[in-house]
């Protein structure tokens, strides 16, 4: 009985105070990989302890030692007399074991299944509508490019004007005059023809997709684009979705536990930081930080709630008091044509064309903030604002990489091992 109590206590500690402490800790940002391992250890040990606690409670009448009790009970089960030596309280425990286990694994299975289905559906969407970027198409488009009038003075090939979906998937070569195309060589890259800037990946074993929108290609410069793609590639290669999935399941299993939500948010942030680190090593942290900031600004123009609820993003609303000071310069001639983009979608976000982030004309560096001339509303999203600001935390971290004492990751790994061994130790009590 002591064992059961100790296990239950440890499970409770792992379910409430420990995740809350760890979710609030900032040292984890210095060593995201070790912190993720620690989170995984906490989640795993917490689940195992909760189950073992009820098991220990069930078999307590059989033997003073829990391992003996379990083997005794298994022996009884094999002999066909499962109830021998158990009282009604133990039966209650047995029912609890069954309920807890089926809930834990059931939710894990169902949430994984739901995720896989949504992913597959989304992959269909981007495969059918997104342009892929073939090297042949890119080379062909680049070869034609110098002949195009008005193309020469543009710093980047992927302007709104020369975007002709389908006809030329590879118009955005020749970036920054280096002749190198950031999009080439990316298998599974899909370009969505939509003016809102977005970049994400659809994870998968063999069918992973990295999706960028036309808005992203027109918002970011080539170096920023390379950094973003490196970030997404890190997600795909590192299978970071597998890291997050169990925490999503944890959150769905215990939606009433706030630490479960905090854990998911913290692990998601750590995974992003992990990918940031990879991208920063391959390109430059400052470039990635700039890309993050630029996309963060454009994302705020697309309030999460209003987009889905009203389906009307384009209605010009008054700028909020402390909100965007849309630089007059960004309405420069170079952008005028984007308003008349022939491929403006008619769908629910059709109005987004007006609020789309636009690349300021060259030389108007002061207005690089990608703020659209149409003063879009920057009201906070209807959803609860995140308790911390992940984007800013990531940017600050990229710009000022924290000095990580060697013992931070070591301590995190050691703590993970310790947490995982505690259940075994408690069992032998």
């Amino acid at each position, binding site marked *: 009985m002591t064992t059961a109590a100790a296990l239950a206590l440890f499970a409770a500690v792992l379910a409430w105070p420990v995740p*809350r402490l760890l979710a*609030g800790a*900032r*040292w984890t940002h*210095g060593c995201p990989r070790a912190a993720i391992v620690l989170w995984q250890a906490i989640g795993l040990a917490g689940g195992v302890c909760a189950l073992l606690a009820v098991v220990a409670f069930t078999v307590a009448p059989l033997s003073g030692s829990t391992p003996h009790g379990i083997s005794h009970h298994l022996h009884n089960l094999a002999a066909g007399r499962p109830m021998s030596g158990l009282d009604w309280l133990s039966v209650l425990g047995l029912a609890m074991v069954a309920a807890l286990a089926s809930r834990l694994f059931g939710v894990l299975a169902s949430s994984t299944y739901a*995720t896989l289905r949504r*992913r597959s*559906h*989304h992959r269909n*969407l981007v495969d059918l*509508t997104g342009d892929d970027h073939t090297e042949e198409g890119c080379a062909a488009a680049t070869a034609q490019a110098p002949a195009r009038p008005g193309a020469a003075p543009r710093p980047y090939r992927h302007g709104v004007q020369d975007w002709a979906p389908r006809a030329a998937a590879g118009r955005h070569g020749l970036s920054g005059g280096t002749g190198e195309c950031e999009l080439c060589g990316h298998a599974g890259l899909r370009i969505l023809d939509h003016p*809102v800037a977005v*970049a*994400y990946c659809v*994870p998968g074993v063999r069918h992973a997709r990295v999706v960028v929108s036309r808005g992203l290609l027109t918002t970011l410069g080539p170096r920023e684009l390379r950094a973003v793609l490196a970030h*997404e590639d890190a997600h795909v290669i590192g299978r*970071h*979705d597998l890291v997050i999935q169990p925490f999503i399941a944890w959150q769905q299993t215990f939606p009433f536990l706030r630490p479960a939500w905090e854990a998911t948010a913290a692990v*998601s942030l750590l995974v992003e930081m992990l990918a940031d680190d990879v991208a920063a090593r391959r390109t*430059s942290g*400052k470039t990635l*930080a*700039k890309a*993050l900031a*630029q996309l*963060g600004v454009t*994302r*705020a*123009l*697309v309030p*999460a709630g209003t987009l889905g609820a009203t389906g009307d993003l384009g209605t010009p609303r008054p700028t909020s008091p*402390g909100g*965007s000071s849309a630089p007059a310069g960004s309405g420069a001639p170079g952008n005028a044509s984007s308003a008349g983009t022939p491929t403006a*979608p*008619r*769908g629910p*976000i059709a109005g*987004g064309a007006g609020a789309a982030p636009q690349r300021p004309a060259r*030389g108007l*560096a*002061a207005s*690089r*903030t990608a*703020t659209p001339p149409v003063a879009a509303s*920057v009201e*906070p999203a209807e959803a609860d604002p*995140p*308790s*911390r*600001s*992940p*984007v*800013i935390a990531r*940017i*600050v971290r990229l*710009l*000022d990489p*924290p*000095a990580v*004492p060697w013992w931070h990751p070591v301590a995190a790994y050691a703590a993970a091992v310790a947490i995982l061994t505690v259940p075994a130790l408690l069992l032998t009590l």
Partner: protein
Amino acid sequence: MARLGDLERSVMDVLWDSDGWLTAREVAARLHHERDLAYTTVLTVLERLERKGFVQRQRAARAHRYLAVDAREAVVAEAMLEALGTADDRSSALVRFVGAVTAEEAEILRRALAQPAETDFTGADDPPADEAAALLVEAAATERVLPGTGEVPSVPEPSDTASSATGFTEGPEPN
């Protein structure tokens, strides 16, 4: 598999570009594929697309006729809605580069981005990014957007920030 995916795309393009219902034979005729496709192949692809919910079928006199369920733009919009996380999103189906950003955060980012001068446009190593960093840290500290604001010095000496940011601190209570 990639072959089939290309076919599905081509077939959807035909359906999206047409005004009305098309029979499988008409779809096959309009496909500009490298090789001539068997009618049955087109039929198979159409059935697959119908199963996936992108195509609807209507029984005509002797053959089936097909129509795209949604316009291409609507499908793009659906993908974008999912990508922006506006749909009911409790799963990790997509891994986003930037999640939700509040207005205050956007304002901080905008101010940080406004810092770089023209040199930054072509500069190789973004020297003004330091200023942006300074501004970010400062803004975050003063506007209490970052957790543990007491830990972030308002004078953003990079080394100070780094050392203090690594302390084992618990963040403030989330609302």
